[in-house]
């Protein structure tokens, strides 16, 4: 979602967007907080004023907001930038990352990281969103490969995927897997859903 087309606005200093600039993917600022325009519906009676019905997602809290603007209104742009980072290490409650280009380090708290800690391996490339230069959202790659550290042994010869069990992977997270997965296996996990995808190696 926050891909190439969106990042071109990232380095722009704070300005304003006129209603004619409104479109899906725009990053704007309302009451000092960054929002992503996730829906924009242009409605206009043939002979009347234009209305811009927007659904906005708060990038700090993930909540959604419905707002309607009329022709001639404007919104402040948000200084939001997306950068490629590498996960370095965890220090108590803080996760430390490094910007691949500038080598600058950024810290995110476990609250900000949310469920993403489950997928973080040292050296892993992630993408990070900055608001006014501060990190706000971390996105791990869509798929990660994790080694199974511990699990109950599966029933011999059982290759059915509908029988599942929890396994503990190298990051310490628990993932629900088919029962044929064993210790030492490497599995692929979808970080957007937290679900097991396939066994990569035994």
């Amino acid at each position, binding site marked *: 979602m926050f891909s190439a087309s969106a990042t071109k606005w990232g380095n722009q200093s704070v300005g304003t967007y006129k209603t*004619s600039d409104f479109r899906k993917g725009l990053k704007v600022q309302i009451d000092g907080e960054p929002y992503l325009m996730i829906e*924009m*519906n*242009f*409605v*206009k*009676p*043939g*002979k*009347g*004023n*234009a*209305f811009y*019905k927007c659904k906005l997602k708060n990038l700090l809290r993930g909540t959604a907001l*419905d*707002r*309607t*603007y*009329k*022709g*001639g*209104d404007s919104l402040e742009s948000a200084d939001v930038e997306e950068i490629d980072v590498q996960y370095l290490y965890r220090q108590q409650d803080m996760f430390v990352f490094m910007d691949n280009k500038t080598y600058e380090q950024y810290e995110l708290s476990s609250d900000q990281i949310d469920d993403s800690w489950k997928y973080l391996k040292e050296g892993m490339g992630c993408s990070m969103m900055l608001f006014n230069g501060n990190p706000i959202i971390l996105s791990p790659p869509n798929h990660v490969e994790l080694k199974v550290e511990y699990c109950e042994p599966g029933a011999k010869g059982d290759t059915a995927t509908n029988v599942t069990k929890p396994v503990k992977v190298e990051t310490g997270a628990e993932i629900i897997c088919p029962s044929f997965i064993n210790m030492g296996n490497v599995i692929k996990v979808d970080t957007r859903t937290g679900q097991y995808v396939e066994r990569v190696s035994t």
Partner: protein
Amino acid sequence: MAAESGDFRPAASWEVLHLRARLLRRIRRFFEDRGFLEVETPLLSADTVIDRYLDPIPVTLFAAPQQMTEGPRRWLQTSPEFAMKRLLAAGAPSIYQITRAFRGGEVGRLHNPEFTIVEWYGVEDDMRQGMQLLSDLAELLFQQGAAERISYAAAFERWLGIDPHAADGPKLAVVAERQGIAVPDSLPMEDRDGWLDLLLVECVEPHLGFESPVILYDYPATQAALARLRGDRTPVAERFELYFRGIELANGYHELMDPEELRCRNQQINRLRHTDGKPLLPESSRLLAAMEHGLPPCTGVALGFDRSVMLVSGAKELSEVIAFPSEIA
């Protein structure tokens, strides 16, 4: 999005493009059968319709290709209305046209800045006859029966419980709040028409035209545009619109004939455009000259062809029925 450079293919399917051609033929036959003369008028004109919320796209007729922005100014027409009325004043019979119209800044699910418009004028038709003709065409296009007719006031009474001709801005604002709709912070309390537009779009339009097409008529006098007014105590504009499945498709007027009244409305609209920070549009036009000469009594209607194709085909967006919508044009 289909905007990948190098992707040359149309956004609309061949099935839909064939449907467009069929509907164009059907519309031409409809008007031919009724004795309407097909006409063509310029897309580039020194004159343009003056509307507070229609923004015509300016073009220059440059003298030298080295200075393309210099030279006489022309406007891409937002509708062929002015030129068609010049033909009427010059003695045309009932006329129709299928052409392109251009409206700056209008992009969305139901808007493309360049679109196909069907516009016609029935000479000697009053509003009732104009609505009948529109209903006949809607019946032909959508095959969902004749259009139901409901006045603007009756529609507001039915779905909002208010009299749109009597309620003031603050009263309309209270109604909007009670309806729980998102309201633009910038909408001034005294902008009565702005509140009416918002309520129309949010609370009335979504109900219109789900069994058969619907014609909404007798608009507030302040939204007359180029329609004539009727009545003394609470004058209404003899203006009407066609809706089908909640979507506005056509706009018609029992046409204003008085050039003095047009002059007044033009000045007033330009004042409002000025307060909106928009460029003023030329108030004197060859249409005024035509009206001084005498416009015959008539009712005129403009129908959005692309939206009609959208509804006939069951498409959800205009971009599904236009070969090359704006973003890939």
